[in-house]
């Protein structure tokens, strides 16, 4: 790929107190590339995403976005949004007591020069997202419903719908299918395919390696905070990938003894 990568992490490390979550991670996400990020629980996948999207500051290393070095001290979620990076986080990113329409637009509301929110427009768009993108047919749910009254899957739907609406160059999905019924999982996979078709990029974190293998161009395996594998998806069959992941376990078990 000749064009510059959307994101490039160079020797990024992240420590929480004494816990080392990321160690020397170097990783590139090219344009129009779907990258699957796999690894055990606690491997550091979510931490990587948080560093990449400005939620957490890296302890070491640097981040480049479209070839431009990011100043870690001033990098924030807002900055990531401005750089057209959109994220569906694993932990809830919705305000429980707030209505759906606010949850769609919070952080970047549609306002006039005084900062007053255009509630009517926001509600109209939220309504549209709900009906077309997420496919809420749920009884009694409308844009004024607070998130606390939604099911786990519906919440996930809202977070994904939000990411879909703010079309970005890079969309990060951290275990988006966890709470979803089979049919909704297919919707998410279709969404990822549409990202590819639309010429945009995606990082897809998922424990179901079947899904990952199906939609991704590249596979990256994290193991205890380090990149253990980084290959094109086509170079590895589904069983080879499964075997590799199992081999990580056995290597760890023997080293533990």
């Amino acid at each position, binding site marked *: 790929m000749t064009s510059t990568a959307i994101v490039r992490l160079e020797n990024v490390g992240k420590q929480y107190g004494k816990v080392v979550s990321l160690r020397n991670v170097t990783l590139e996400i090219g344009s129009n590339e779907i990258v699957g990020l796999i690894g055990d629980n606690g491997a550091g996948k979510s931490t990587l995403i948080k560093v990449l999207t400005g*939620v957490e500051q890296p302890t070491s290393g640097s981040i480049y976005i479209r070839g431009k070095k990011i100043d870690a001290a001033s990098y*924030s*979620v*807002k900055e*990531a*949004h401005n750089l057209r990076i959109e*994220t569906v*986080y694993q*932990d*809830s*990113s*919705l*305000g*429980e*007591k*707030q209505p759906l329409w*606010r949850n769609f637009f*919070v*952080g*970047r*509301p549609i*306002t006039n020069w*005084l*900062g*007053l*929110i255009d*509630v009517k427009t926001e509600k109209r768009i939220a309504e549209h997202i709900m009906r077309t993108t997420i496919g809420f047919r749920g*009884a*009694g749910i*409308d844009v004024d419903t607070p998130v606390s009254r939604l099911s786990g899957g519906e919440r996930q739907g809202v977070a994904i719908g939000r990411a879909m609406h703010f079309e970005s160059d890079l969309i990060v999905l951290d275990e988006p299918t966890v709470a979803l019924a089979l049919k909704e999982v297919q919707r998410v996979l279709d969404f990822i395919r549409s990202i590819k078709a639309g010429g945009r990029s995606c990082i897809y974190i998922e424990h179901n390696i079947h899904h990952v293998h199906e939609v991704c161009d590249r596979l990256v395996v994290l193991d205890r905070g380090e990149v253990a594998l980084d290959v094109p998806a086509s170079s590895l069959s589904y069983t080879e990938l499964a075997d590799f992941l199992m081999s990580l376990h056995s290597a760890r078990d023997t080293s533990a003894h």
Partner: protein
Amino acid sequence: MAEAAHTPGRTARTRTLSDIFKIEGVAIALVFILLVVIFMITAPRAFMGYRVYMSFMATVPPPMVIALGLTLVAVAGEIDLSFPSVVAFASYVFCILYIDYDMTWLALLAATAVGTAMGFINGLVVTKLGIPSLIATLGMLFLWGGLVTVVSNGASLAIPDIQGTLFHTIFAGRLGVFPVQILWALLTAVLIWIVLNRHRFGESLLFIGDSKAVARVVGIATEREKVKLFTLMGAMSAFAGVLLTLETTTYFANAGMGYLLIVVAAVFIGGTSIFGGSGKVVGTVFGSLIVAIIEAGLVASGVQGFWTRFFIGLVFIVSVTLNAAIEDPDKVPLLKQLRSRAKK
């Protein structure tokens, strides 16, 4: 979708009734009216005349303005207890500038600026030192209170001759028998309602109060918004301090102390969530009125003065519990236990 939600079993009458109760403030307005009616019966001589209401409208505005600011603070899941000292400081600055330099408009500006600066510092203490705001602002209550006592040498000031100036007429004069300061308080209420419900700053506060982690992840600069919040609270407390000074035409160091209980009570009686994430501006307006009417009504009904605090405390606890139960019954452990026992 809306049509489907209304099952044919529900009559049009119950629908309009529940719709009326959904309008912000209707329930608490009824509580207020009920109190007025009760006091009209128990203390007819005071409450059947207009005078007691006029006196409310003169005394309620300062605590109401503070309570409106505190509503925003509570929405963000924080609290500010330093306002009595900010009130005193602003009152002192206003008085001294009026006495020494004959300033009125500039004195208002200076007093508000001082309060704004104090609020800004409160905000920095809360965010940069990471002390929970309850403790931080309690400390600042003493710190600012001590400072104003030192600066004023512990003396009181009186500015009786400000009465009759144009400035006094605009902020604390009478339209006939009607005190104009209530209009300033209501104007503040309208502005704060817009800020909370229609402005992006209010939306940030709602999400910060809901969950700080979520607020960060959706791209809200939580620290900066909180500093802004405490700064605004300081400015509003100072404005309230000037309103109070104009009504009483005096400064004394303990001027704001009497507001500590009633302002906090007004906010939470009004239905703003003690857990953060939701606030009722109209509720705060009526909460301020309710607290004031309880104080006056009990005394007028012949209850000994000492009892008023007891009753305000009681009403405070009961209404906060009720509001929490309306929000989520499981948040009240007693109700939760009763409910689980009832199921057995």
